[in-house]
């Protein structure tokens, strides 16, 4: 390439000449008439495509990814088992979970706090993909707003309230395992004994998070521990069940 005489002709700059103007083109008249015809056609035959948003809701595609929700199981408890899979998968690092020993028999941990920064979130849906027990889902709600950044940090109660508001909407059915805890909690090999509570074990406490709360905070739906869940689909059911709703 350094020697111009041996340059490959394909690498040369190719000059493209603009096509020569004809007689009518050089008078501008046909182009202007043609353009005016298009413009006038739109004025006469008005077909506005505007959606009047607050009054007229947009038709979202079925796989639209809006604000998150934390699903409840059939007893109204938070479904999340605080496994940190979503927080690990999250490319925007917008999920902050603090795990605590679960007050229920059917799982080890539950999220003492679960905060999603909805401003940091890029709505990629990886948390939903990662969740082993289908606890976190993206709804089709998009018109969230707040007057401060702090208000856009959605905590567990807020995310559960989104579930309450959207779970029975036709647009946002719970996609998988409604009411059940999810496949990860139904492994063939269940622990023989109830999980040991890390009471007074500082080493374990440091791992799982803050001081274990025996009861859920006020506002959460506290239901007595229940195992096994009647009518819960088995793991094989779950594998054959459609992963996403409305696809195809």
């Amino acid at each position, binding site marked *: 390439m350094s020697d*111009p*005489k041996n*340059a490959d002709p394909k690498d*040369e*700059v*190719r*000059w493209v*000449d603009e096509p*020569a*103007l*004809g*007689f*009518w083109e*050089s*008078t501008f008249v046909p182009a*202007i008439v043609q*353009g*005016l015809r*298009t*413009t*006038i056609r*739109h*004025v006469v035959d*008005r*077909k*506005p*495509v*505007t959606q*009047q948003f607050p009054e007229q809701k947009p038709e979202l595609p079925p796989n639209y990814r809006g604000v998150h929700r934390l699903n409840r199981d059939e007893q109204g408890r938070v479904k999340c088992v605080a496994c940190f899979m979503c927080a690990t998968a999250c490319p925007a690092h917008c999920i902050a979970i603090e795990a605590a020993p679960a007050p229920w028999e059917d799982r080890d941990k539950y999220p003492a706090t679960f905060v999603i920064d909805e401003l940091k979130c890029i709505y990629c849906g990886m948390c939903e993909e990662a969740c082993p027990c289908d606890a976190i889902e993206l709804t089709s709600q998009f018109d969230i707003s707040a007057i401060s950044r702090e208000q856009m940090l959605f905590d567990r109660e807020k995310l559960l309230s989104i579930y309450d508001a959207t779970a029975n909407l036709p647009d946002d059915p719970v996609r998988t395992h409604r009411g059940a805890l999810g496949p990860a909690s139904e492994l063939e090999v269940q622990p023989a004994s109830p999980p040991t509570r890390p009471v007074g074990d500082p080493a374990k406490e440091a791992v799982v998070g803050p001081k274990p709360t025996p009861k859920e905070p006020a506002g959460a739906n506290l239901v007595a521990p229940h195992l096994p869940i009647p009518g819960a689909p088995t793991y094989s059911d779950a594998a054959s069940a459609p992963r996403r709703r409305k696809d195809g």
Partner: protein
Amino acid sequence: MSLSDLIVTILVISVTLGGTLGICSYLIWLERKLSAAMQDRLGPNRVGPAGLFQPIADGLKFILKEEFTPKYVDKFLFTLAPCVSVFTTLLAFAVVPFGPMERTFEWFRFVVAPGVDIGLVFVFAVTSLAVYGIILGGWASNNKYSVLGALRSSAQVISYELPLGMSVLGIALLSGTLNLEQIAMKQGAVGILGWNVWVQPLACLIFFTAALAESNRLPFDLPECEQELVGGYHTEYSAMKFAMFFLAEYAHVITVSFLTSILFFGAWYFPGISTPTSDYPLAWVVGLAVLFFKVLCCIVFIMLLRWTIPRFRFDQLMNLAWKGLIPLALLNVVCVMLTLHFDQSRWWLALTSIGLFLGAGALSLTLQRSPRPTSSVALRRAA
């Protein structure tokens, strides 16, 4: 001047000013609605039925907004510029008759300054002053983009003054007067065939194009082209000062439309509806309506053009004026002179206009740009 004259003049001035400014605000509404329709949108529809109160809301916004003056501007010129802009465009309206002149009442007449014999010259002299507003605004802003916009504007306005003036020279020669009222009445006396557009179609085209360029409307809005110049000469302006530049542009559009209707399309006359001899009651209302309808058609056409033709590049703009419009206008004037001198029928001028237009097209065919030089690599290899 008697007291009653003074009162009548003040009344006419207030009606003209109020009417022009009111029409301006609703022209903005019309333009927004029309451009929305052309782009398959709805346009303003929230303030009042069909957005009809939008201009009022806009006006309130402009008045109540913070009027920011940057720190390093020349404060006097910065404030003066929008005033000059509005003043000159409104002043041009002084000699433009906006209604049937032969039906003047004791208490009202349809022109602010009647019987100005150099009416046409006055209009062009004053409207070309409008470029002062733009240049002062751009220069006083102490901002490179503003200056660039202003300089473009001065080049553009100076270039397009020439074809603008020359295109109506033919009309002035044919009518034998520069008085706008006289020009209008001469057309009305003959009927629809007396309209100047039939004998001077080329002049009409040149006048309209040059007038569009004078009013800085698309496709000639180089001074404010956002992609290159942020906002052009009014980058630093806000609130009411900015609104005044905007107002000047729309007032200019109105003036241009009035001039086009009066000079070329028979003003307030239309055969069968409004003629100089029609004597039914309220004939003046019909005359007014006819003129306003023509003006509205003109304005809508300008708005249609705005969304049809993309903006010219600067060299294309200059080419169009200096290589296209000015020679054509000059030749057109020569044709008019020859026709008048040798006392030929005016209808020859229609033929010469068409001939000139086609000739220009044919000439530009032969003057096509030569093919580009081959690339330097190829040249060196050949050597």
